[in-house]
């Protein structure tokens, strides 16, 4: 990584790539890392989509004022109309209300799970990488085992034993089973940083290990942590939706996954009720796509070889 020669304690984030011209034009008090991300077209588009859905989730009560989106409000199997923007389910529930309120649970579960996954991954990955010795051996073994165990089947089996877990349990199960990949990536980055001069300097000064890990090493891999976090959120949103879609979540909760589950259960595909599964599915897809875009953007900003497409032409 190109940050290894950064002075101790300085918080460097994503390598700032600022074009001199635009830097002069933009005078807003925006931190460098955010500016370089917003200058990347892919990342900016991703952030725009994500902000849009976050606003929907935040203002769900204003957009679809209903106390319970699972309530039956009209005749069943209605195609989209002025009354019901996204039509109604076979039982007569308002799909628009479900999609708007579902945004809340689905995105909350996604972001909370992604964050918990990263906390576990940071703790295990950085400890293993920095401390070394038998602790590293043991933690790496655990990480590799969790990495190799097939995630979705394991989650399904646990969900099967738990008998229709609610959103909170889903967060727990997903977090416990899915931290390994990020932990491995962070560990190898820690191994590289551990031998850099600023860490050696901190050690000579007598800083305790936990301080070196938290304040010297961690800030120097922010871009890696952020992209792993986004990947974890994406994984959590898709897996949660998948679990609920196959009927292993709480069928009474209002989320995008359960709306899809009821659509499938009511044979929406075979009766042509496309409005019951296209809107929630598209929401999941768009949120997923926005996260992917942001990660591509971060990848391009931090990996200089992926840039300068127009200058290189054929790669020769």
């Amino acid at each position, binding site marked *: 990584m190109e940050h290894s020669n950064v002075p101790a304690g300085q918080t460097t984030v994503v390598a700032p790539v600022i074009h001199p011209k635009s830097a002069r034009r933009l005078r807003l008090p925006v931190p460098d890392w955010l500016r370089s991300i917003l200058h990347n077209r892919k990342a900016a588009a991703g952030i725009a989509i994500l902000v849009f859905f976050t606003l929907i989730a935040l203002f769900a009560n204003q957009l679809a004022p209903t106390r319970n989106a699972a309530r039956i409000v009209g005749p069943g199997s209605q195609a989209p109309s002025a009354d019901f923007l996204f039509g109604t389910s076979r039982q007569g529930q308002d799909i628009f209300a479900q999609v708007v309120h579902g945004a809340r649970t689905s995105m909350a579960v996604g972001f909370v799970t992604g964050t918990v996954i990263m906390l576990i991954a940071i703790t295990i990955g950085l400890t293993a990488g920095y401390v070394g010795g038998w602790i590293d051996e043991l933690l790496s073994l655990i990480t590799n*085992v969790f990495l190799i165990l097939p995630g979705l089947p394991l989650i399904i089996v646990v969900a099967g*034993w738990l008998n229709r877990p609610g959103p909170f349990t889903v967060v727990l199960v997903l977090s416990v089973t899915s931290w390994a990949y990020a932990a491995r990536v962070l560990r190898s980055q820690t191994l590289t940083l551990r031998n850099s001069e600023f860490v050696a300097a901190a050690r000579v000064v007598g800083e305790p290990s936990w301080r070196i890990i938290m304040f010297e090493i961690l800030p120097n891999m922010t871009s890696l942590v952020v992209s792993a976090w986004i990947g974890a959120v994406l994984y959590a949103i898709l897996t949660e939706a998948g679990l609920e879609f*196959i009927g292993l979540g709480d069928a009474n909760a209002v989320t995008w996954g359960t709306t899809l589950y009821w659509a499938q259960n009511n044979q929406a595909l075979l009766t042509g009720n496309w409005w019951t599964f296209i809107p929630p599915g598209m929401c999941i897809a768009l949120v997923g796509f926005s996260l992917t875009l942001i990660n591509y953007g971060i990848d391009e900003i931090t990996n200089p070889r992926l840039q300068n497409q*127009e200058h290189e032409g054929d790669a020769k």
Partner: protein
Amino acid sequence: MRFLVRRTGFYMVAALIAITLNFFIPRMMSGDPVTAMFARFQGRLEPRTMDALRETFGFVDAPIHEQYFTYLQNLLQGNFGTSITAFPAPVTEVIGNALVWTLRLAGTATIVSFVGGTLLGIFAAWKRGRFSDSVILPFLSFIGAFPYFFVAMLLLYILAFGLKWFPLSHAYDLSIRVDWGSPEFVMSVLQHAALPAFTIVITGMGGWMLGMRNNMIGVLGEDYIVMAQAKGLSDRRVMLTYAARNAILPSVTGFAMSLGFAIGGALLTEIVFSYPGIGFWLLSAVNGRDYPLMQGIFLMITLAVLLANFMADVIYVMLDPRAR
């Protein structure tokens, strides 16, 4: 060689941990699954069968370590118990039948997806900014960000329900007799597999393509590529034997892992298309509280993944002399 021996040791540990998890997860939940099952299947299970099931699970009146060893012993003898949903078939038989369908569908589709995506990635890196790089890659990435099952539902709705190009569900036309010798049956199987396989290929390809492209771009900056070109080697040779061979290494490991995910991903596809593979049976087992089948399938998937990873290690050693 030492590398492979070490890896084998690791796989043994991983397998033991999976088996142990399989043993302890039911014990962390409240109640005894066999009794719960009995309550559900009142009248369908004889007390004798129940006792046999308890013993297979190791749920006997004994200290927990003895239960654990009883369980291990049964596993080693290939005794996974009796399925409830497919009563009275033994779990191994149900798994065997289902596995054939999954391997045929998901196995083939994953390989096609990997090979196709990797080749496209090689071209995309070689011709930066051209068609494959600037049109195909974003398109596949867009599809790849979709939830697996949603793509499957959409395609099923458009291609099978709307346009009627493909059958709606099942692995073959149920009105035809199962006979692998008859061309009619084989055609029916192929027709039914085409759409599910297509959904797996199209959702998986973007990831392979992007990974390979980015690895290739990294490798293309190396000195030995310049050297190979300076020597006047043909483009094709530089691209495939110099750049691609080195760039594919990370993908190979990923491919082995994806075989495990293939079964998981195929699980959702199998559910949308009612395809009688492992995933479909796993869900039926979970919904029907068929714990022996559920545990059997989980163990089987895990062992298959471990085996796939071992094969990837062998390929890795063959591709990368440094690992020998």
